[in-house]
C-alpha cells in the first residue's frame, strides 16, 4: 500500500534541494567576491549534512524529522592559498563546484519528477 504521506522521499529530497540551493548561494558569493581584498572563500559542508539526514532515517521509521534550516554552524572557510591581497577564492574550483552543485540539484529534481510520475500512475489506475 503506497501512501504519499508516509513516503520519506519527499521530505528528504526537499531538504537536499534546500541545501543544494543554499550551497549555490555560498559558491555564488565566492565568485562575486573573487576580487575583493581580504575575502575568505566559504562553503557549506553538504556531504556531512547529507549523511546525517540519512542516519536520521535509519534510527527508527517513526522518527523522521525534516532537517531544520539552522545553517550558520555549517559554513566553513576553505584553506586555499592566499593571494597577495588576502583573498582566498580559487575561481576554477568555484566554477567547477557551481556546475557540480547545479547538476546535483537537477538530478534531485529529476528524481522527484520520476517519483511524482510513479504516484500519478498509481492514482490514475495505471494511466487509464
Amino acid at each position, binding site marked *: 500500500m503506497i501512501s504519499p504521506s508516509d513516503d520519506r522521499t519527499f521530505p528528504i529530497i526537499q531538504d537536499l534541494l534546500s541545501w543544494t540551493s*543554499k550551497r549555490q548561494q555560498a559558491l555564488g558569493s565566492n565568485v562575486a567576491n573573487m576580487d575583493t581584498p581580504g575575502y575568505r572563500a566559504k562553503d557549506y559542508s553538504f556531504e556531512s549534512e547529507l549523511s546525517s539526514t540519512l542516519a536520521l532515517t535509519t534510527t527508527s521509521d517513526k522518527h523522521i524529522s525534516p532537517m531544520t534550516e539552522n545553517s550558520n554552524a555549517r559554513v566553513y572557510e576553505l584553506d586555499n592559498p592566499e593571494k597577495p591581497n588576502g583573498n582566498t577564492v580559487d575561481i576554477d574550483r568555484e566554477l567547477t563546484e557551481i556546475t557540480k552543485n547545479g547538476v546535483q540539484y537537477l538530478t534531485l529534481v529529476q528524481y522527484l519528477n520520476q517519483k511524482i510520475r510513479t504516484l500519478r500512475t498509481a492514482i490514475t489506475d495505471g494511466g487509464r
Partner: protein
Amino acid sequence: MNLITAIDVNASGLTAQRKRVEVSSSNLANAQTTRTLQGGPYRRKDVVFETDSFDETLNIAMDDGISGVEVSQIVEDPRPFDRRYEPGHPDADAEGYVAYPNVNVMEEMANLVEGSRSYEANLAAISIVKTMINRTLELGR
C-alpha cells in the same frame, strides 16, 4: 527564495565588475589628458571592492557566509604624475616639463581583461542558477 538570492549575489558581482571596467576605460581614455575640471592633469582612479551582506532586493541581511560585492568607493591613485619635457606644450611649466596623467596603459589593459573575465564568471554562475530555477518550475508537469 534561496535561488533568487543566489542570482542577486552574482548580480552584485556583475555590477561591481562593470563599474571596475568603466573606471578602467575612463583611465585609458584620459591617459593623455592634461586639463581637468579640478585643474591639472587627470589622476588615475581605482575601485575598492567590499563584501556586501545586505540584500537590497529583499531588504534583509543575508545569511552568514553569503555576501555579495559592491564598489564601496572610487579612490584616486596617489602615484606622481608622469613629467615629460615638452617646452612647446601649452601646459608646460617654467622648466618646460608637462605633467601627464599617472595612467599606465599596460596596467589598465590587464585590469580590463581581469574585469571582463570576472564578469563572465558571474554570468556563468547566474546561467546555472537560472537552469536550476527553470527545472524546478517544471516540477510535476
